């Protein structure tokens, strides 16, 4: 394989790396592998250990998958299988649980916009930002699953994906307006006048949309990052309008440089586009292939995914990631095939390889997730508006 010369950091920005945490890993048989600890999937210690490993590898952030239904191979409902991991914990709470045990790495739980209240999501993520001291992010997804609809019982299937993405965009808009609804210096503790806050720096958001309306302001002061980064999976081009409106990071499951360039051209305003890749890593290329075959044999069928699958060495993967960077990606979200094996292979194999090529950080350079991603901390949209204190503080209409 070709060996690329180390590019100059000045001309080629360092790659960003995230890891997607889910169950025992992304291969359906991952839970049967040595070290997978499948009996511990519902304990805090399991998740804390994964996050510690990712942080030891200086990764930008981890994401936590979630859903409001049982995992299933059948999009209509439970598949009745007994050979796969089923059940999961609330992703926001898992992220909060590991936050005090980590210091630098970003924590990005998944939230289903279709069935949740943006008011609750906004304060939960703001609070995750407080408990992690500026390391919260949000991954938004929609759900079309009819069984999930029945878990809530307040709308009827089938749901239209285009409408759901429109609703999700409103959801994100409300979440962000609520984050902005307290200006940073709203708390004044002015003993002389007895005022704890300056109410002119709190703002009603008055959002009106077809699915919901939200008054505001938030009950939670503006989070440390101001606006924690929002991300979403670009599962196909139909999602691009949502990404363009709502995401700081889009995860693009692109199979080749052409696809990447198309996505990059279609999403010029999205600050970060990460490649989405499932990985099986071993020091010998044949070993990775053999391991994947062993997993497939245990599972009974060949592994397929909505994202490209890579099986090979960390050096080869580094080549692939740098090619993605050449095509316009700013980073990658890697899905470890087996967390117990492939997460350490990323942190202890891929990361040093990228560092040797000058393409990855050697120490955490910022204390917030926005800082790690090179995103400035924005001012509140309400603070930026021309001063109109009387209108800003006006009561509910």
């Amino acid at each position, binding site marked *: 394989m070709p060996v690329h010369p180390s590019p100059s950091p000045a001309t080629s920005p360092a790659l960003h790396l995230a890891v997607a945490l889910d169950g025992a890993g992304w291969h359906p048989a991952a839970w049967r592998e040595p070290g997978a600890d499948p009996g511990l999937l519902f*304990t805090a210690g399991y998740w804390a250990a994964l996050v510690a490993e990712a942080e030891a590898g200086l990764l930008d952030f981890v994401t936590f998958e979630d859903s409001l239904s049982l995992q299933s191979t059948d999009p209509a409902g439970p598949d009745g*299988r*007994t050979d796969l991991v089923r*059940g999961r914990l609330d992703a926001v*709470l898992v992220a*909060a649980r590991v936050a005090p045990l980590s210091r630098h790495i970003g924590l990005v739980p998944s939230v289903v916009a279709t069935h949740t209240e943006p008011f609750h999501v906004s304060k939960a993520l703001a*609070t995750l930002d407080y*408990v992690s001291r500026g390391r919260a992010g949000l991954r938004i997804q929609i759900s079309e699953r009819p069984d999930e609809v029945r878990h809530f019982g307040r709308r009827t299937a089938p749901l239209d994906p285009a409408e759901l993405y429109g609703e999700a965009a409103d959801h994100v808009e409300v979440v962000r307006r609520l984050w902005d609804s307290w200006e940073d210096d709203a708390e004044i503790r002015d003993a002389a006048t007895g005022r*704890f806050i300056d109410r002119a720096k709190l703002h009603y958001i008055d959002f009106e949309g077809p699915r919901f309306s939200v008054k505001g302001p938030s009950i*939670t002061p503006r989070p440390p990052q101001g606006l924690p980064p929002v991300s979403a999976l670009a599962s196909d081009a139909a999602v691009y309008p949502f990404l363009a409106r709502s995401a700081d990071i889009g995860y693009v499951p692109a199979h080749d440089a052409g696809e990447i360039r198309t996505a990059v051209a279609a999403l010029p305003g999205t600050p970060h586009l990460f490649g989405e890749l499932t990985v099986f890593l071993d020091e010998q290329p044949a070993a990775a292939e053999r391991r994947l075959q062993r997993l497939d044999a245990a599972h009974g069928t060949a592994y397929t995914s909505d994202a490209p699958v890579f099986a090979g060495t960390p050096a080869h993967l580094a080549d692939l990631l740098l090619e993605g960077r050449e095509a316009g990606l700013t980073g990658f979200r890697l899905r470890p095939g087996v967390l117990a094996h492939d997460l350490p292979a990323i942190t202890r194999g891929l990361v040093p390889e990228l560092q040797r090529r000058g393409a990855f950080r050697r120490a955490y350079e910022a204390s917030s997730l926005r800082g790690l991603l090179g995103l400035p901390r924005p001012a509140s949209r309400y603070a930026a508006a021309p001063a109109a204190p009387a209108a800003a503080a006006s009561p509910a209409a």
Partner: protein
Amino acid sequence: MSKPLKQIHLAAHFPGVNSTTVWSDPAAGSQIDFDSFLHFARTAERAKFDFLFLAEGLRLREQGGEIYDLDVVGRPDTFTVLAALAAVTEHLGLAGTINSTFNEPYEVARQFASLDHLSGGRAAWNVVTSWDAFTGENFRRGGFLPREERYERAREFLDTAHELFDAWDGGEILADPVSGEFLRDANPGAFAHLGKQFDISGHFNVPRSPQGRPVVFQAGDSDEGREFAAAAADAIFGRYGTLEAGRAFYADVKGRLARYGRTPDELKILPAATFVLGDTDAEAQELAREVRLQQVSGATAIKRLEHVWNRDLSGYDPDGPLPDVDPVPGENTIALGRASVRMHRDPLAVAREWRERAAAGGLSIRELVMETTERQSFVGSPLTVAQGIDALVQADAADGFILVPHLTPGGLDAFADTVVPLLQERGVFRREYEGPTLRDHLGLAAPRALAPAHG
């Protein structure tokens, strides 16, 4: 032979959005930074408290059409803080208020089941309900719920959540890599609930948690609230911290348990209590007066009076006499987002009584408000406070107390250092945790199915 000493249950309420928190004191820290919660939780755990409690409010309070700014404003998300605190404590129970009106059972049940897993069995849920369209303006559902249905929805919400908690019995997960069976049961978590408030079915996706069901608390003093607690709660947050009122409440609520097939031990009665400690009783009394003056400023006194009068009283002098105009009867429109205004169900009678008290004592508005609003439940030296708490518990006025310090985050420190050791010496409070879960701390048995409600 004398009756054995009752063991006292103690919990701590993180002080925040209420009328007792003193934010202007130089020792007052952040109400939102995680360091404050961490300090508070570790103090409570050092003192071997049963649990830490977080209140909730889903809309900022308003008065006279403006966001109320004289008390602490703003708080974090309950679930998220409790999950983070699970990482920095080992035994302390983690209790939070979650509203049953502006949430859905599936989501709340999986959040509490997740918290119970992530804390190793320390989660508790204070079920509250709301009916007001004011709070509803922040949510998809809006103000849809008729007031009289609020306990009906709360009860059905809790029943539904229990069905979800019970949907996994705990034996489903094998996780056997050799056989390849992750599940023993191909259909785990199946549930179906059809009721007036909820019609939902499917599969709960969180396996059974360490406590099976999180501990359930209930707050509320109405007849429906007492009945709801007797039927379905593990603890009730009582309102009465005095001997006679406390004993009456205690006897009434415990007396309701039998009709649900429950014993008096199955429901703990825990009133909220404030406290001021000093080296001597006289010093504590002096400190308590200073705290009261910080809690009830002139501006605060006028605003509190408006809760009864239901009209703008901003033109009145807080150091002058009570207004000669009468309250505006009916729905209180001046103070929004407060539970406490509903306490004044007959404002004309309250105003009459307050005028009589003011006249008899020669009290100004501010002095009257200081007399009639919350005061410190326990004031004195550590010994006086320990004796006071113990006496109320042994006299069956309470099973313990939820302490609400007036300072964040250090307001619990002195209590932990001085009062708790005295209670331990008296043999009425644990020296070490006896088990890992909150049910262990509260002496509650493993959960069983709810008894059907009667009338």
